């Protein structure tokens, strides 16, 4: 009986997580368009619903009902596989991500994570690495110059930025003496990691920007020179898959930044519920992503590679060495 209850709980959590992640682009696109509008002294969507609140729903219906076009010379199997490959990893990653300790519902303690892996951080980086397959398959299968160029850029970018990203979190792992995200948050109960690891945070966040392919590192879909990058040839619901995956990664990088460097659900001064604290911090980082997008220009391809290999990688290495010396 207990086994069935535990199993049902896990299924319920996974279903809830999938529902949240699938619905996440709705408020995020609205927010992004609103913030973009107000930064540029426009208003953003205003006509569908109150202040355009239903605009994402209308856009979703539009995407669902549009023609799902597959180019003539496309590799049909890979073309259909790519959006799923791009969509699945950001969803799978959230299995390992804790949103808090426990909450008690109807007298039973329910943990706010699906699984507490002891190598959660490794799992996150391993799974998120798979996402690059969706991008490169999508670009290759479409048989279009823009798409291939875009996916080539993305591939190079993702691989070169995953290295400093991986190195940046080693300092955190050294401090917490654990790779479990739960333990990392518990280790930050008194002092957040940002105090000890400002360089690590900087490298992680910049690499996260590149990983999520947001401005200033959105070379893969540089509108000016590549059409839309790897998803140039996608339309309808398959295009929506790529969009959902992009927003899921923005959310993921924000959650990871908060968990690794900003104390997760540990609050300061104001005694709010832990989950609310986490969500507030995550909301701030999501806002930061959008704010960056409408402030900074895009880096050139060689500048991107130079930043990745000549600045971030040495910085993260130095961070590991200094952390090791100071805390040993």
């Amino acid at each position: 009986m207990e086994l069935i209850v535990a199993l049902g709980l896990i299924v319920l959590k996974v279903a809830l997580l999938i529902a949240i992640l699938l619905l996440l682009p709705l408020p995020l696109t609205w927010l992004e368009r609103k913030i973009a509008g107000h930064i540029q002294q426009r208003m953003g969507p205003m006509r569908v619903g109150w202040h355009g609140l239903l605009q994402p729903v209308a856009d979703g219906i539009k995407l669902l009902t549009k023609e799902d076009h597959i180019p003539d010379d496309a590799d049909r199997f890979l073309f259909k596989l790519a959006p799923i490959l791009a969509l699945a990893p950001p969803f799978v990653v959230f299995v390992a991500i804790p949103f808090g300790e426990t909450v008690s519902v109807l007298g039973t303690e329910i943990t706010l994570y699906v699984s507490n892996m002891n190598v959660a951080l490794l799992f996150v980086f391993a799974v998120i690495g798979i996402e690059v397959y969706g991008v490169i398959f999508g670009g290759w299968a479409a048989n279009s110059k823009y798409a291939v160029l875009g996916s080539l850029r993305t591939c190079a970018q993702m691989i070169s930025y995953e290295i400093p990203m991986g190195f940046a979190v080693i300092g955190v792992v050294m401090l917490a003496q654990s790779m479990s995200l739960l333990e990392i948050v518990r280790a930050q109960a008194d002092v957040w990691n940002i105090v000890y690891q400002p360089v690590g945070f900087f490298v992680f966040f910049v690499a996260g920007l590149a990983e999520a392919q947001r401005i200033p590192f959105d070379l893969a879909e540089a509108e000016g020179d590549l059409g839309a990058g790897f998803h140039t040839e996608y339309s309808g619901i398959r295009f929506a898959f790529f969009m959902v995956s992009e927003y899921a990664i923005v959310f993921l990088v924000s959650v990871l930044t908060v968990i690794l460097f900003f104390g997760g659900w540990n609050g300061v001064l104001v005694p709010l519920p832990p989950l609310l604290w986490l969500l507030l911090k995550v909301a701030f980082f999501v806002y930061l992503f959008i704010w960056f997008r409408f402030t900074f220009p895009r880096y050139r391809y060689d500048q991107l590679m130079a930043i990745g290999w000549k600045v971030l990688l040495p910085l993260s290495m130095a961070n590991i060495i200094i952390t090791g010396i100071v805390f040993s």
Partner: protein
Amino acid sequence: MSHARHRVGAWIGWAFFADLASALALTFGYMFSRSVTMQYPDKEKWLPYPRYRGHHFLTRDEKGEIKCVACELCARICPCDCIEVIPYEDEKGNRHPAKFEIDMARCLFCGLCEDACPADAIALGQQYEFSSFSSSDLVVGRDDLLGKPGKARTGGGVVAARLNTEQDVLVETSEPQGYNWWRNIRRT
């Protein structure tokens, strides 16, 4: 000395992304500034200036008689041949148009008819909202032209738009200088 200090300051600023931070501060300020959008069909609507060439209108004299003498000069000068006038003579021997039709779908709003008219009977007014689903609706006859709004007096103002359903909406009555487009533009 001060030059060297300035350079050191510049390098420190470079290392801590002072330029990026100032850019972020600028966009953050813009985010809370008023937007310049005029929500045209929903709320506000712009009033054109007197020189604006919109929908044609026919005028009457002080006795309420149509001013047009049906000389057909407007029809002659029209570069796209969109005016059709058929005259008649009333019992006093005055010429007036029996039929005065303008095909708005073909009109290019050059205003030559207004310039050519010897009786100041036809002019291009301020109305600009006359889109339609069929081009046959755009052929406007004499009686409709007589009822069209005339030239704007001051112009450049903002009034409530047609689709406006709310009462408490921004309505700027015509300012003497017209609508100040730069009012909400943040300049630093």
